């Protein structure tokens, strides 16, 4: 059984589908976590604490990394295969066929954008939070507006507010989310198709569900970004001296 | 030297003949089957089903087709359905009734025993195809559905939407694939048989051209089966596929096989009329349309004039001003008369000046009454794909305006003469399906071509071929380095070289169109002594022109469609003459063969049962010599030929 997941085209699709599904669930979880920030920065930090260098958070992180890596590596493998299958001689004229979504033909491009955004995102947050804890440190001293500031790695709210006080970060993240939106509009219904849970009656429904999920993700993350940008001053002031409860 | 024809029809009661015969003929043991090779030419219903069944039995089979895949054979284009005497509709159908309808539909010019066998195995075909996964139409109860077809008063036609031929062929092709996978059948797509090799008076193999590389190949076998279909393309414009041709059958004729009833050509009544001189193909609209469509022309000449000028639409003509001529002339069968009758009736109306388009060569097929009675949805469900196709081609919406139709060449009942075992006059050479002459007499009923192809391939040939091959069990593998093969290959190569050497001015199609014109005008729906004599002269002259002025571009050792077409046309130019000669000889009207001199006062075909109750079997005597006729008398022991009556 192990082999059909690596050597059969349908097995590879199954892997894409399952890892994709896992990543969608992770994104939805991440989004709901972010939303707590809108209600209470303290609550958000509690979550950050909970997801620090604990064994369960670490296990989760490893699985997540594996999921992303497998999804991405398989995508690259499939693309190479598909490029070969297309043949050396390409069509001189190509068109977008009727009813075919742009996203469906550009999933790898969207994937690269998402990976790029992810790298930036890791630098912005993960490297300053969980990584710091993994390295065994309890404080982190970034330079905020030119002055070194001591921050607890669980003080996610401050980090978020600070990051999104910059308009360019908000803009980059929104572009990133837009790529994710396109990726999900195809990816979400596609994962049902790949495991065979689809038919002509359900295509419109699945595509609708995919758009709803994608839009929910987009709005869920974007609203936090925008509100952080608008309220960053208040939150930075409120959370600058936050320390975790013992 | 005339043929000594032995039809090998078994003695005994009609219903027992086939069982008795099967019991009497020899079989080949499994160990010996492995040593015997069979070549099958053509992958339509006949060829594919025969090759698959022979492969299953254990013979080594090689199958050849000119297309890129066996699945493309022209059987695939049959739309309407396949007949069987299942009596699932409880309308008192039976093997005898199917037999009777078929022999009557063929205007009493087919063998009783062959036709009865066809009706007898028809039921097995349906069972076989269902088991292969052919998605026949079904009723809500899950059982098989039927529709009616021309020439029958019962509903015995099984169908798969408008794609019955396709589905049956995919079934036979799947069976063939099963055997190809098992190694018992080897497939040679894009290969064309260019000659049959005869040694010691027996079929020993073929010379074939690989159509991709141009290579000339030799293939030996203990028996050769011709399943290459009909020769309707002699008319250039027909409902046949572009590459359908008579060449494989013609090579057999050239090498000494008798060719029977070449003039029996079926002109199908419901085709889309010709639109212009650049047309290369006629499109058939399924006969099933006649179930619900009504055929008419205006009663008044002034309406015809207005239609031609485009000042009125067909729907503007009042009910009482329409002449539903089939219902008028044939009250019992109405729009469901056999094809030859419907075609001639259309020609009669058009000749009388009632043709409804600019060319005067079209009649209406109207669904107005059916739409009113059943609703547009039902009609759409039944014929939607045909209606769409019609609109695509003609730019007219058949839900609103009646279709225009006109007869076109569709099927050739004539073909290589075979005995009851389907063997030709050359031992070891068999012909099945449309390529032979056996079952349809002078006219074929709708939904019977598929039946015959599969009957021959699945249920007849696999048994009867054993009778011959049982004598070959000691025979070694056929060697292909013998003088007979050398000679055949040399002749083929010379013929090809000769074609290239002509370097004339006319393309193959230019000449083919002219041949088609001669055939349609003189050897078409109505033939006379004068027209046939004219045709023979004109074809001879055209043939000379072909061999002096054809232009074949490209090379012999490459993929060269022009060369393929030239080789086929060379044979059509002889076959056309043979058809005209046969038609000239047959001084009667029967089925698809209508001699204007021989008609009743009402304009119906008038048979001459005194003088022409025989199959006319022709023997080749050289390109420019008259062929020799041998007659196989047809003995009607069980049915009595009567004037066909579709009136009451």
């Amino acid at each position, binding site marked *: 059984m192990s082999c059909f997941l690596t050597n059969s085209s349908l097995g590879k699709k199954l892997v894409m589908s399952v890892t994709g599904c896992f990543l969608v669930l992770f994104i939805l979880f991440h989004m709901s976590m972010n939303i707590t920030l809108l209600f209470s920065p303290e609550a958000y930090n509690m979550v950050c604490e909970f997801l620090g260098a604990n064994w369960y958070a670490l296990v989760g992180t490893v699985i997540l990394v594996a999921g992303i890596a497998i999804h991405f590596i398989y995508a690259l493998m499939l693309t190479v295969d598909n490029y070969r299958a297309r*043949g050396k001689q390409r069509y001189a004229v190509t068109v977008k066929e009727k009813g075919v979504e742009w996203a469906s033909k550009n999933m790898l491009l969207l994937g690269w954008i998402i990976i790029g955004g992810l790298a930036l995102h890791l630098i912005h947050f993960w490297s300053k939070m969980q990584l710091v804890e993994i390295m065994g440190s309890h404080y982190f001293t970034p330079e905020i507006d030119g002055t070194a500031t001591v921050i607890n790695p669980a003080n996610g709210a401050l980090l978020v507010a600070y990051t999104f006080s910059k308009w360019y970060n908000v803009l980059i993240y929104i572009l990133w989310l837009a790529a994710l939106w396109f990726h999900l509009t195809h990816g979400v219904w596609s994962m049902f198709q790949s495991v065979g849970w689809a038919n002509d009656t359900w295509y419109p429904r699945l595509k609708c569900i995919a758009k709803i999920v994608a839009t929910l993700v987009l709005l869920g993350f974007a609203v936090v970004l925008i509100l952080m940008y608008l309220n960053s001053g208040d939150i930075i002031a409120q959370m600058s001296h936050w320390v975790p409860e013992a | 030297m005339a043929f000594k024809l032995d039809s090998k029809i078994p003695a005994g009661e009609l219903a027992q003949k086939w069982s008795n015969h099967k019991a009497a003929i020899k079989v080949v043991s499994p160990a010996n089957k492995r040593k015997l090779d069979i070549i099958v030419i053509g992958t339509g219903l006949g060829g594919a089903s025969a090759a698959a069944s022979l492969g299953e039995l254990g013979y080594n089979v090689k199958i050849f087709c000119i297309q890129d895949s066996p699945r493309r054979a022209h059987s695939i284009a049959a739309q309407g359905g396949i007949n069987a005497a299942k009596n699932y509709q409880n309308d008192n159908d039976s093997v005898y009734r199917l037999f009777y309808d078929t022999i009557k539909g063929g205007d009493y010019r087919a063998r009783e025993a062959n036709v009865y066998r066809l009706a007898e195995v028809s039921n097995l075909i349906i069972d076989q195809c269902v088991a*292969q996964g052919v998605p026949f139409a079904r009723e809500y109860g899950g059982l098989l559905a039927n529709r009616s077809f021309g020439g029958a008063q019962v509903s015995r036609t099984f169908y798969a939407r408008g794609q019955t031929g396709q589905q049956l062929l995919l079934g036979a092709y799947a069976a063939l694939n099963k055997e190809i996978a098992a190694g018992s059948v080897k497939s040679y*797509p894009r290969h064309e048989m260019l000659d049959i090799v005869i040694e010691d008076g027996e079929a020993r193999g073929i010379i074939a051209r690989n159509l991709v590389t141009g290579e000339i190949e030799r293939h030996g076998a203990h028996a050769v089966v011709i399943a290459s279909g009909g020769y309707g393309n002699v008319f250039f414009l027909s409902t046949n596929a572009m590459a359908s041709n008579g060449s494989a059958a013609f090579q057999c004729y050239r090498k000494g096989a008798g060719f029977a009833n070449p003039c029996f050509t079926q002109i199908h009544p419901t085709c889309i009329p010709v639109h212009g001189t650049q047309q290369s193909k006629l499109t058939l609209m399924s006969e099933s349309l006649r179930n619900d469509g009504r055929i008419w022309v205006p009663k008044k000449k002034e309406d015809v004039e207005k239609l031609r000028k485009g000042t009125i639409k067909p729907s503007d003509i009042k009910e009482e001003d329409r002449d539903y001529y089939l219902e008028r002339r044939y009250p019992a069968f109405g729009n469901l008369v056999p094809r030859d009758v419907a075609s001639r009736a259309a020609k009669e109306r058009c000749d009388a000046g009632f043709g409804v388009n600019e060319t005067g060569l079209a009649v209406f097929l109207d669904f107005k009454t059916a739409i009113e009675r059943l609703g547009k949805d039902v009609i759409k469900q039944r014929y939607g794909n045909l209606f769409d196709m019609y609109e695509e081609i003609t730019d007219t919406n058949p839900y609103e305006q009646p279709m225009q139709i006109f007869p076109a060449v569709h099927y050739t009942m004539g073909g290589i003469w075979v005995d009851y075992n389907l063997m030709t006059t050359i031992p070891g050479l068999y012909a099945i399906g449309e390529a032979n002459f056996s079952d349809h007499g002078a006219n074929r009923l709708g939904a019977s071509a598929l039946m015959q192809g599969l009957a021959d391939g699945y249920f007849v040939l696999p048994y009867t071929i054993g009778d011959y091959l049982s004598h070959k069990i000691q025979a070694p593998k056929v060697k292909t380095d013998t003088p007979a093969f050398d000679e055949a290959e040399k002749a083929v190569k010379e013929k090809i070289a000769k074609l290239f050497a002509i370097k004339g001015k006319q393309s193959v199609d230019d000449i083919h169109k002219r041949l088609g014109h001669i055939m349609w005008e003189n050897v078409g729906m109505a033939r006379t002594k004068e027209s046939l004599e004219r045709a023979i002269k004109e074809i001879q002259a055209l043939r000379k022109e072909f061999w002096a002025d054809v232009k074949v571009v490209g090379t012999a050792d490459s993929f060269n469609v022009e060369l393929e077409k030239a080789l086929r046309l060379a044979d059509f130019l002889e076959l056309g003459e043979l058809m005209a000669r046969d038609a000239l000889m047959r001084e009667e009207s029967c089925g698809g063969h209508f001699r204007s001199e021989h008609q009743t006062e009402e304009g119906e075909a008038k048979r001459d049962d005194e003088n022409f109750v025989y199959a006319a079997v022709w023997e080749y005597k050289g390109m420019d010599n008259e062929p020799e006729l041998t007659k196989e008398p047809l003995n009607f022991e069980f049915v009595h030929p009567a004037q066909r009556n579709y009136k009451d």
Partner: protein
Amino acid sequence: MNFTLKIWRQKDAKSHGAFETYKVSDISPDTSFLEMMDILNNNLIHEGKEPVAFDHDCREGICGMCSLHINGHAHGPEQAVTTCQIYMRKFRDGQTIVIEPWRSAAFPVIKDLVVDRGAYDKILQAGGFVSVRTNSVPDGNAIPIPKKDADESMDAAACVGCGACAATCKNGSAMLFVAARVSSLAKLPQGRVEGARRAKAMVAKMDELGFGNCTNTGACQAECPKSISIAHIARLNREFLSAKFED
């Protein structure tokens, strides 16, 4: 009507090909696309040039022989028809029409616009059949089949094997073709018997022959001349995965 045609010409499988430009004039709008090609070819023959090789046969849209990638579309810009069913009235007078052969590694060019689609035969030989012998079968009505299932089977069985799906797919995947056969037989009790074996064997053969991987773009169903739905691909996926999980 007049047209400028840019047609791919290639001597044989080994040669390099290139586009050649031709002009055809005085074409009636009622002429079919392939009749227009016939006219071009007849002109070329009279000029002593080799005609353009292209596959075609029945010209009724059922044999699956015709191909051609016309202005970026398999079987031309019309929906749900094969190349042989397109009429010139659907083009603009004076239009330039680009005609290319199917492009897919599994469909090598034989000459000009003719490609080798033997790979599709090989996939069907791997399992696209029901293993019944001639004459050892029950009565046709022995097993009732719900009309809905028979209809669905027929929907899939309408596939003509033309190759447009793999030729259109940006991944060169033959999934729609394979799915059509697997699904058609899977919907019938007769085909159900060896359903698992069939799905595995045909998918393995498809992969082996160098077709690409399906990424669910749906381009195949958009260009399929028989409008076969990707729902059949879903069924193939289900058939295949359940077969694999039973191993």
